[in-house]
């Protein structure tokens, strides 16, 4: 009986934790999309008003937070200055590819960020502003979708995991 109890608790807690983890993915994605927009806002200000070169701006943004989003900017800034001879697009893509697995972003978000990197730094301030604005707009839309997904799915997964665990335990008993 004792072992059965332990087994049941194990099944319920494992599935419950898995559910919480999936739920947290939805929350994290929304937060990361918001962080990305904030970072782009800083980038826009630095480019349009101060014309600060990218390595300095990217590193500055990278230092403002410790999360995966800040890491994309920080790494891209480092790759631009490490004398490997990478172009901005290459440095951005490399940083994005390395950091993407540790984010909660999905393939749509990846495509937006990848397209953003292709044009980053390669034109005048006006064109850069347009690229940043367009990217921000796309990210806003993704954030709205992510928020809807979050509302729909977070509770479902948070409780669903435990409920599934309990159901399995009841069936087995």
């Amino acid at each position, binding site marked *: 009986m004792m072992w059965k109890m332990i087994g049941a608790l194990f099944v319920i807690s494992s599935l419950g934790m898995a559910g919480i983890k999936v739920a947290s993915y939805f929350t994290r994605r929304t937060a990361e999309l918001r962080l990305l927009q904030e970072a782009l806002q800083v980038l826009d200000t630095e*480019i349009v008003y101060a014309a600060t070169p990218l*390595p300095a701006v990217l590193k500055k943004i990278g230092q403002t937070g410790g999360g995966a989003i800040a890491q994309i900017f920080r790494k891209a800034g480092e790759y631009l200055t490490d004398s*490997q*001879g990478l172009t901005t697009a290459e440095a951005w893509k490399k940083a994005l590819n390395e950091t993407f697995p540790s984010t909660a972003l999905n393939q749509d978000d990846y495509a937006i960020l990848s397209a953003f990197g292709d044009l980053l730094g390669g034109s005048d301030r006006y*064109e850069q502003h347009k690229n940043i604005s367009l990217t921000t707009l796309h990210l806003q839309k993704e954030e709205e979708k992510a928020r809807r997904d979050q509302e729909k799915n977070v509770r479902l997964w948070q409780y669903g995991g435990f409920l599934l665990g309990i159901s399995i335990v009841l069936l087995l008993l």
Partner: protein
Amino acid sequence: MLQLSRGLSEILPFLAPSLRDILGRLSPTVVDGLEEVRLRLSRPLSVRWRQNEFFLDMKGELSPLISGAYIVSREEIQKTVQLISQGSIYAFEEEFRQGFLTLPGGHRVGFTGRAVLEGGQLKTLRDISSLNFRIARAVPGASRPLLPYVLDLRNLSPYHTLIVSPPCAGKTTMLRDLVRFLSYGIPELHFPALTVGVVDERCELAACCDGVPQHDLGPRVDVLDHCPKDVGMLMLLRSMAPQVIATDEIGCAGDVTAIWEMVNTGVSIIATVHASSWEQLEERPHLKELIKSKVFQRYIFLSRRKGPGTIESVWNEHREPLVC
């Protein structure tokens, strides 16, 4: 002091990696006399060495022949443009409009490409197709032979001086060295240090990078970087109380007007101009009046006859030769 070998190693990080490898194989003799590195899209990689242009092959060997020369690819040009602009074209809009930018160390990169016009004015250059890395060199003491002619030892100020030379004959180097002498002072001639204002419109004289002059101009120099000469000279006069104002490549009407305003303010002017002879100098429409009115008290003519910076002659305001 800048040395040529240091010059090449300072420009290498700004070249596409494949080009770095080739230039890295240059022999020390070539590196020592290297003046320029030229990249032209789909054409041979070339260098200017000891006043002649040579093509480079994969092994970094110099040759006057095109056959076997390394052909510069579009990707290499694009990477190099990215590297010299730190991947931030927007941060160098003015430089791209002017067609050159300055690298740390004072080396200058000139470029050509497709001009983008706006309202008939050049807005920027796109699709860069040629780059010319000019390796900067300071030649401390280059202007020493000129000091007895340029300095008014009675009034302890330099004469209004115009350095006249064709391109690449060392006029900027000479002016830079004069500025350095004035800014440090010349104890052996009992000449005191003076405050010098430099208007560096083409960013060549002081070659500032992030506000720091990349050439040693001495401790008493204030640099107005990227500023039009006519505006800059008057600005310096009002704001920094200089005893000497130095500027490079005068010639347009605005520059001449500004010089007219300056000559009676007690500030000495030292400037350079493109020309090879008195005839050419007098043909420059705006300079003619300055010469006729004896504004400049010393004219120094330079050439490349015995290498850049060869002093051909020195004249006074009455067109009497002091050195010939």
